[in-house]
């Protein structure tokens, strides 16, 4: 398959088309939008399905196979917030708060990008390792904490505490991230999956696996609408962030392909790991950043994450990482 054919195949996949439909609906100022509860329901369903299946597959993986990939994932979780921060602060001249806030997003991971890359790899005939969802949970939080710690260097008595009210402690933020919806569903799903094993999974498989891809398209429709409602902010974020939102995923994705290859991941596994590293969180990171770095402008990090990097990865990034993994795998 040529690169062109692969890109075309990706562009004409249901999830990319549905994302485009959502974007288009917003562009023509349609009233269309998924009810909030449906959106939440779909995200609960997708995360849980991901966790459960990942857990069942994890129960069949050996610990030794997991060790190196896990290490590499944690490494990526430590490097990506720093590369992001440095480029934003010193190339982009962003304020400390803004740079740290955006870096927290790129240091974490977007579960939908993960799923999209998995679907893509499978459609290319690859079989990503069964423990990939486990890696996803490892990558979610470290990057956020590292970026926020960097940002904390400048946090000086931002919040007055006179009125008898204590400022939110770091513990509270840590608690919030670790007990956040996506974390509980993913880790919880993994544990339930491991415990019940294939045998327990069979009866609930039609629900969690049969409907998965269809539910995903519906979710991407709303992602398109949400991204579309941020398009008008693109002008406000400036050219640097636009370039950053495309360049940094390529950088992180490439790094991840090499590290994944070194850790012994298959071509499919490398592709998915790259998509994770390249992606920017937009569920776990935003509230943590908003509470910890109130001076950081949400328009910056949400627009970069949702309206630049997510569509880029979906449309071009994932095929790119796959090509790279493929090339590396055959050398």
């Amino acid at each position, binding site marked *: 398959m040529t690169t062109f054919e692969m890109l075309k195949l990706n562009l004409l996949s249901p999830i990319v088309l549905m994302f485009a439909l959502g974007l288009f609906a917003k562009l023509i100022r349609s009233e269309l939008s998924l009810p909030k509860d449906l959106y939440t329901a779909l995200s609960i369903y997708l995360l849980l399905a991901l966790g459960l299946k990942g857990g069942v597959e994890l129960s069949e993986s050996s610990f030794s196979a997991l060790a190196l990939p896990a290490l590499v994932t944690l490494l990526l979780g430590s490097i990506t917030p720093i590369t992001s921060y440095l480029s934003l602060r010193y190339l982009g001249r962003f304020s400390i708060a803004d740079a740290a806030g955006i870096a927290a997003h790129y240091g974490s991971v977007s579960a939908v990008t993960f799923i999209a890359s998995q679907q893509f790899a499978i459609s290319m005939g690859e079989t990503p390792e069964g423990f990939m969802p486990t890696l996803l949970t490892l990558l979610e939080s470290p990057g956020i904490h590292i970026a926020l710690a960097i940002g904390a260097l400048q946090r000086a008595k931002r919040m*007055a505490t006179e*009125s008898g009210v204590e400022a939110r402690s770091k513990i509270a933020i840590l608690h919030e991230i670790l007990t956040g919806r996506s974390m509980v569903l993913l880790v919880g799903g993994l544990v339930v999956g491991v415990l019940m094993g294939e045998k327990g999974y069979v009866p609930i498989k039609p629900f969690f696996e049969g409907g998965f891809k269809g539910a995903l398209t519906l979710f991407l429709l709303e992602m398109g609408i949400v991204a579309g409602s941020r398009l008008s902010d693109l002008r406000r974020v400036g050219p640097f962030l636009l370039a950053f939102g495309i360049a940094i995923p390529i950088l992180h994705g490439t790094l991840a392909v090499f590290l994944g290859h070194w850790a012994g991941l298959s071509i499919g596994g490398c592709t998915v790991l790259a998509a994770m590293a390249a992606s920017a969180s937009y569920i776990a990171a935003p509230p943590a950043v908003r*509470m910890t770095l109130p*001076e950081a402008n949400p*328009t910056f990090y949400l627009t970069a994450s949702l309206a630049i990097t997510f569509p880029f990865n979906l449309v071009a990034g994932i095929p790119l990482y796959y090509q790279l993994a493929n090339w590396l795998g055959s050398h």
Partner: protein
Amino acid sequence: MKTTPLKLVTIVCEPVLTETLIGELKQLGSTGFTLTSVRGEGSRQMNSSEVPGEKNKLECIVSEEVSRNIIDHIARNYFPSYSVIAYITETLVVRGDKYV
């Protein structure tokens, strides 16, 4: 039925602040609160939540003094960086002594 004149403090804020604020209202002397999910737009185009415009409205009935403290607390801590509005209305509350 006797009614007591009290203050109704209304705060509309970004969802991310809600749980923190609820805790703080209690510390500042409010005996309860009523929370409504709303959509709001103001002068600050922050769009800090995933779905732009999503806001929470907190209402609490408190004494004059507590209302002052709440207002001060919010103005000092949240006005500078967050999308938030706060206002006070006079109200007559049934069995108002319960809420002071």
